[in-house]
């Protein structure tokens, strides 16, 4: 009796396992045969570039495999919404993951998150022209130095490829490594080094509380370590006019301005330039000696650091107050100037208000707020 029972149980187990195996095999076969999208064509910018890819993968990754790097901070998980492209044809309906990241206007003009668009048929897409020039780089962290209590500067030697052509004001996407259960992520940082040094890039990075990337940079990244990045990205750069310049930055927003000023010096661009740098207290200032030296050296350049929270009884002799008030004090009329701003979104919005109030046309205000 017990033997028959055991036999029945064994048969039942064998039957269930067998059925499971057959179903699994069927699903694998179905994935390969039924869901085989074959070769798909991706036409970029009205045929400027055409890719032939195996269907079934997400657009972001198909593009990256073909050396077209769309900015993405989350590595294609549909959570950062940086990887927007226009999918004119073949993208299918907008999915529930990407919908919250797309405004009604963006949905109307075919904008999609490239990490959420599966390539199942031929696609027609539009990407910014500049992305054709973006490359992936491997480098070596040559130097990591503290500029303030919460800002570091990284100097990276480019190794593969070993040079980068960029314009002062552009940025790269730095890739972190996985550490202590945290996923690898990518974040955008403006280059602070001048474009003339093609073999190195320098970045100025402020620690963000609980930030995955900056915790890695501050607590785990060491000199001599290999580092990956892609770039250059962005269109925040000087125009080729002769208009006098107002630079305004705060914190790590110093980076692109520091690159631009040194680039201007090297190229002999002598547009009258005033650089307003806003900080809370003296301990938030950096590069003051270097900028003061440049001010002495270059007749067309003025540096105005301003502190908004410096104790009244301190030895600070410079400007005090919000950077917006200081700019307004120096320039009640900036109708002939161009404004270049980099910093937090709040600071930039407030500065735009001050500059437009002082008659600067909106078309002459350029900013990179990484918002």
């Amino acid at each position: 009796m017990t033997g028959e029972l055991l036999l029945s149980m064994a048969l039942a187990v064998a039957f269930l396992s067998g059925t499971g195996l057959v179903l699994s095999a069927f699903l694998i076969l179905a994935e390969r045969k039924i869901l085989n999208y074959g070769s798909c064509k991706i036409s970029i910018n009205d045929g400027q570039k055409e890719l032939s890819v195996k269907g079934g993968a997400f657009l972001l990754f198909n593009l990256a495999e073909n050396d077209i790097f769309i900015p993405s901070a989350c590595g294609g998980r549909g959570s950062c919404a940086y990887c927007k492209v226009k999918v004119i044809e073949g993208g299918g309906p907008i999915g529930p993951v990407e919908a919250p990241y797309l405004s009604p206007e963006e949905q109307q003009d075919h904008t999609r998150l490239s990490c959420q668009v599966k390539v199942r048929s031929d696609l027609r897409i539009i990407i910014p022209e500049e992305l054709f020039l973006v490359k992936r780089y491997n480098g070596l962290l040559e130097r990591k130095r503290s500029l303030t209590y919460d800002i570091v500067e990284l100097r990276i030697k480019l190794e593969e490829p070993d040079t980068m052509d960029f314009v002062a004001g552009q940025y790269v996407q730095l890739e972190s490594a996985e550490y202590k259960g945290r996923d690898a992520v990518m974040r955008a940082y403006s280059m602070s080094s001048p474009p003339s040094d093609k073999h190195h890039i320098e970045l100025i990075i402020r620690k963000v509380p609980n930030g995955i990337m900056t915790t890695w940079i501050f607590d785990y990244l060491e000199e001599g370590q290999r580092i990956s990045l892609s770039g250059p990205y962005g269109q925040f750069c000087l125009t080729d006019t002769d208009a006098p310049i107002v630079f305004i930055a705060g914190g790590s927003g110093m980076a692109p301005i520091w690159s631009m000023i040194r680039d201007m010096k090297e190229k002999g661009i002598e547009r009258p330039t005033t650089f307003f740098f806003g900080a809370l207290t003296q301990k938030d200032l950096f590069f003051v000696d270097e900028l003061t030296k440049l001010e002495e050296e270059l007749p067309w350049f003025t540096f105005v650091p301003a502190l908004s929270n410096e104790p009244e009884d301190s030895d600070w002799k410079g400007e005090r107050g919000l950077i917006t008030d200081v700019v307004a004090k120096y320039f009640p009329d900036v109708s002939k100037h161009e404004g270049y701003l980099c910093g937090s979104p709040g600071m930039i919005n407030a500065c735009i208000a001050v500059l437009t109030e002082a008659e600067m046309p909106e078309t002459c205000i350029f900013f990179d707020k990484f918002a």
Partner: protein
Amino acid sequence: MKQSPAEQNLMRNLGPSKFSAEGFLGSDTRPFDEIVSEDLRSLEQKRVSKEDLVAALTDAYEMAKQALGGRVVIRPGVTAVFKESMGRVPSPFRGDGVFEKGEAVVKDEEGGHTIIITSLGIHLIKKHGFFQGKGSRYRIEPERAIGIFRLGPVPS
């Protein structure tokens, strides 16, 4: 109790992950549902609605943000400073979108308490009733917040 794949995914996102270096749970080992229900019960006991608390947090956050790093007085004895960061942070809940990274540090000078309000933190309370786990840098302890903002029925 065994977690569903969706719950497992949520708990993974709430821990140290791509969303936050330290995660949203702090040292709290309670399940997500329990954290939410206990915090909402605390509000009920104090006869404060979630909406009123969210409104108070939002007001303080916006007041601090307008001051561009300067200290503002939320009410006598309570001040706030906004610390801005560039970029945006995604919600650990799929499809919720991205939120600005700055934080308003609200200090109750009398009680000596501090709470840190973020745009994502407000959203998590508003949409999910999630005040974050105990020990998390951004947890809004309901009773503490109620005290700081003087919410609830006026004692007779």
